[in-house]
């Protein structure tokens, strides 16, 4: 069984090597194969970042053209899928930067509060329902998506890259052109703001 798994992994690696060679040679059929194989997942990524179908499709197109132009520089240190994932994230972020900025709620309004003694002012929450049980409810999913959309863009982007796309802090910093310290601060504030926006989902108990 282990032998068969190793063989399957080796076959996949061989197929990907051949596909890369064909792509570098400018083979149109290979390019189409890549579009069809990796496109659906890349489109999902673009949709998550842009929350607009038109913008997601535009940025996907941009991503594939960039990939086509840069395939000669792809050294194969990561998988083709990972490389394409990064390209579509960057294309989506470029699209985001090009958008007209919309009015944003100040993140300060969503930060936790402390009294003059630096003691937290916080209701007592009773969260007994499991995540699995909550997430199947449509109103919960809608509130979570709407809350993430409400975050100011610079915080929302860090949250998406770190918590959803699972980039490391260093990778987020490199992608956004900011330092790791700034990534950590923005991530924390984004998470704190999201918690504030999701408070209607939590049961408050007396205290």
């Amino acid at each position, binding site marked *: 069984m282990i032998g068969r798994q190793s063989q399957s992994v080796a076959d996949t690696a061989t197929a990907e090597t051949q596909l890369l060679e064909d792509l570098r040679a400018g083979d149109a059929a290979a390019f189409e194969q890549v579009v069809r194989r990796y496109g659906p997942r890349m489109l999902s990524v673009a949709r998550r970042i842009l929350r607009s179908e038109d913008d997601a*499709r535009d940025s996907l197109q941009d991503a594939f053209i960039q990939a086509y132009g840069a395939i000669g520089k792809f050294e194969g240190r990561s998988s083709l899928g990972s490389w394409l994932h990064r390209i579509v994230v960057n294309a989506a972020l470029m699209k985001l930067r090009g958008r007209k900025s919309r009015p944003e709620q100040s993140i300060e309004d969503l930060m936790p509060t402390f009294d003059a003694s630096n003691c937290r002012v*916080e209701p007592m929450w009773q969260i007994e329902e499991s*995540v*699995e049980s909550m997430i199947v409810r449509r109103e919960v999913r809608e509130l979570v998506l709407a809350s993430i959309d409400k975050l100011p863009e610079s915080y929302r982007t860090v949250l998406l890259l770190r918590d959803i796309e699972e980039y490391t802090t260093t990778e987020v910093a490199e992608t956004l052109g900011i330092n790791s310290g700034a990534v950590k601060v923005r991530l924390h504030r984004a*998470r704190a703001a999201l918690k504030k926006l999701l*408070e209607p989902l939590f049961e408050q108990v007396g205290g």
Partner: protein
Amino acid sequence: MVGVAGMVRSLKWHGMLNCRQIEEVIDDYLDESMAWRRRALFRSHLLMCRECRSYIEAYKRAIALGKRVFSDGDGPPPEDMPEALVKAILAARGRAEK
């Protein structure tokens, strides 16, 4: 007369982390990147501070919901690309080649 809450508040001033300091390092605590000594101080604070315990539970739940909604809420990636989109991408490649 000082009640329990007042005693807890005064203890927070005696070489222990206060709630604002807890706020600054929550993510280090949650991703277990905190040095053990600091972690011990953090946990000591949580033992005494129900506001921070409550906050962290809600904070963790918000993170978990955010992660799950994107892995479940948008559904799995579609099996196929919209054909019009595939054609548009292939046509764009053709233009880029010229």
